[in-house]
């Protein structure tokens, strides 16, 4: 039952994001569009490039979807609305999200096309930039909660959300999450103006449908993680806990989609430089500040 509810929430959020994506592309808000879009993808041919690395090519979209779903499975929507409340939930998220890189590189390498391959290797550079900014802020969150259990992390924020307690960590995590989801302005591996679609470019038909679904699901999962780690999860007045979780998750996800529309794509060299020269020192400062706060404030 829990599984069904969480998956339904995931699918519903992905559908909402697809509607918003459609609105950004066409200027029309049409709730039925994602459904027709999916059906149209089913109706198109799904081309397999000649002499590809077939295993990589086929595995990439599926892996990306599996990763996003597994990530969601360890995040709570409400105190008892969680598929698997692992003892190492926060760590599991990290482990699952690491496979996003694997999936993207496989999608890039698989078709034996220049645009896709460059896109895949670009994402490896992107991982080197954002990865520490996912891991380090979560450490500071775990320090406060004294636990890696995701429900305990939400519980630790009952009086004060982490976005207030450690705003620096939130900012870094949010940016890194966008880079991880490779949405604009961090869409280096799929850059249309630079790589003609990059790692997405060779997927057509049903495979493209799965890939798009996976990317939207990934955004939802990351938004949900942001909610759990920083926005107090299910905490909130009046509404039932699951509603608060969903509202916060959707708000974060929509803002992730919208931000990219108003920004030009970042340069890879700049991204790496800023992440390492500013991001990582700031993340360390965040850990130290949180460490001191925990000791000073009872």
């Amino acid at each position: 039952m829990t599984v069904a509810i969480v998956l339904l929430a995931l699918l519903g959020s992905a559908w909402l994001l697809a509607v918003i994506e459609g609105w950004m592309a066409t200027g029309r808000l049409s709730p039925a569009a994602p459904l027709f879009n999916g059906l149209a993808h089913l109706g198109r041919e799904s081309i397999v490039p000649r002499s590809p690395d077939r295993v990589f090519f086929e595995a990439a979209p599926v892996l990306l979807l599996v990763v996003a779903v597994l990530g969601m499975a360890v995040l709570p929507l409400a105190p008892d609305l969680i598929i698997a409340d692992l003892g190492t939930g926060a760590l599991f998220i990290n482990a699952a999200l690491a496979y996003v890189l694997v999936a993207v590189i496989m999608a890039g390498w698989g078709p034996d096309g220049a645009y896709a391959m460059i896109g895949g290797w670009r994402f490896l550079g992107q991982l080197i930039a954002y990865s520490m900014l996912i891991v380090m802020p979560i450490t500071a969150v775990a320090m406060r909660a004294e636990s890696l259990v995701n429900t305990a992390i939400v519980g630790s924020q009952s009086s004060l959300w982490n976005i207030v307690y450690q705003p620096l960590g939130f900012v870094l995590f949010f940016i890194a999450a966008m880079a991880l989801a490779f949405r604009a302005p961090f869409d280096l591996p799929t850059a249309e103006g630079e790589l003609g679609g990059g790692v997405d470019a060779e997927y057509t038909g049903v495979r493209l449908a799965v890939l798009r679904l996976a990317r939207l699901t990934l955004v939802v999962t990351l938004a949900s993680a942001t909610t759990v780690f920083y926005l107090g999860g299910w905490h909130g007045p009046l509404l039932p806990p699951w509603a608060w979780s969903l509202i916060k998750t959707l708000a974060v996800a929509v803002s992730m989609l919208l931000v990219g529309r108003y920004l030009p794509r970042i340069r890879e060299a700049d991204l790496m430089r800023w992440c390492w020269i500013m991001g990582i020192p700031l993340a360390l400062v965040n850990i130290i500040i949180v460490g001191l706060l925990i000791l000073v404030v009872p």
Partner: protein
Amino acid sequence: MSSDPAINLTGARQKRYSVLQKLVSRALARNLSCLIVPGPEVALAHGLDVTAAGLRIATTPRDASVLLIVGDLPGKMGDAVAVLYAQMPRPRAILMVGGQTPSTLSGDDISSDLSQEDLTEAVGQLKRALADGAFTDSPEDFDASVMHARIEYVCPMHPEVVEDEPGSCPKCGMDLVAREAGESTPEGGSDHEHHEDHEHHGHEHEHCHDQEHQSHHEHQSHHGHHEHHDGHDQDHGHDHDHNNEHQPEHAPENAGTEYTCPMHPEIVRDEPGSCPKCGMDLVVRESDDHSEHEHSGHDHGEHDHGEHDHGEHDHGGHDHEGHDHGSSGFMSMIEVTKDLPRSADGLQMDWLEVPFGPVFPGLPGGLKLTLTLDGDGVTEGQAISLVGVTSKGDNVEESEEMDAETFIAYLSAAIPLAPVSYRLLACLAIEQAAGLEDDSANAGARTGALERERIASHLGWLAQLGRQLGFAWLTQRASTLQLQVREANRDSLAALEPALRTLGTRLERTPLLKSRLMGVGILPTESSGLRGPVASAANEGGDAWARLWQRLAEISASLDLIKSGAEPELPVLRDVGDVSGTGEATVDTPRGEARLSLKLERGHVKSYELDTACSHHIGLVPKLVEGQELGDALLAVGSLDLSPWEVTS
């Protein structure tokens, strides 16, 4: 209309019984995405709002179900269009707007005139056709000659051996290697090297590296040397010249050989020895400023130091038995990479020659940029135009003679991104040839039209910049404004003024934009052949950021001009009669000055000569992209606002 003639889609999908088909067909009809050829900027310049007509703009053929061709395409684009269509997944359709369908396609599915209403109606028809006929029992394969490059087989050692079938070389018995016919005629020496690399870098061909080696030996058969890096460096020497310029230890008067550390390229010594930083043995390397005789001197001197222990290279100079080379079973990294080109940091990598264009989402359609990529860096690149206008019309008399009006129409149609400017240019040149005085009555209206086009053109460039940078808001805003400005009169332009002026403020406040554009594509003031905004921006820093602001400033200046001037009106040729003479005119088009000189004979254009800004600017591309990161290189090319149509050939 119910009496629509049934449209049979040539790009329908093969049928297989399914209850879902009806539903899927409907969904397909609701989700039309189109790939615009030559490019979205041409559709915009013609005043077509493709999104409003009900089509989503796709950026790759894989994502598109409609191939939307806007206007007549020059013959050189034919192959590209065929390839794009072939790579679209079925069901697919061709929609031809305002022109002849290229002959490489087997006709279009729907054609319409060049207007928004006709386009919208055609899209409606297409939707109905898809809903009914997305699936058919027996679709026909699409085919074009470009898809069938003849495969021929050559011997890696004996390039003169070319066979039609696989087999072994009659001279040396080696297996022949497949290649596409036509690849054998390289444009230059270094290109040839790249091709070799492509052919052989598949890992299963590792033994070929050795064999290729021997052909190196063949070329330089007088030196029985075993230093293979050098053979390569000689070929690629120019590629890392720039790298060595800032090496402090490098003595400029160095003649011939120098020694460098494989790990620390900045260590350069005149004599063999070990690296002061890491202790590794120094390797021999060709000096940068080598000339022919210096090089041969180096080859001879090389026996003195066998610093590379390539076990299997101890063969004599001439008689390679060769086949035992790959047989050792173990390939060290040095073995695998020794023939690969060397990057600026001294690593040996596979270089790829990757086409960007003619229909690439980040560049104007018709421009074909070919970049040699080393990782995501550009080692060299060149741009050509597939849609350029002919610069000289000497052969006008051979075909049917062009009267003045036809010539004007021809010239403005050939340049869809700035038709008004070239119409004006042709009018001025013809009027001058006819000996007419400048008339002040028309001048104001003509200037107004020219300035209005300048605004529209710069807005089109901004939209293109947005597409390149994934800056969706900018693309949408600039496209909307461009469509409004295109045919606006003075009053409506005045109404649009606040929107145009806030665009600049908005861009100034956009985070990341400045860091993205600053320092990209720097053109110093003394660069030759700069015209228009590119030339003016050279004084302000000469990078993409300066060019952005130059264009925004020109939008403002043009607005002021129109406000204080006359109502913009399309230039119309005054009555010239059957006169003869020669005339020359210059117009400051949105992309810079264009000159046209022509000879008029009895009211007919006998010959003409056209000189445009873009013909000069396209020559700047190789220098701009060299050594840049891929994204920066594309941005640098984009910031020139090259109109491939204006590149004369």
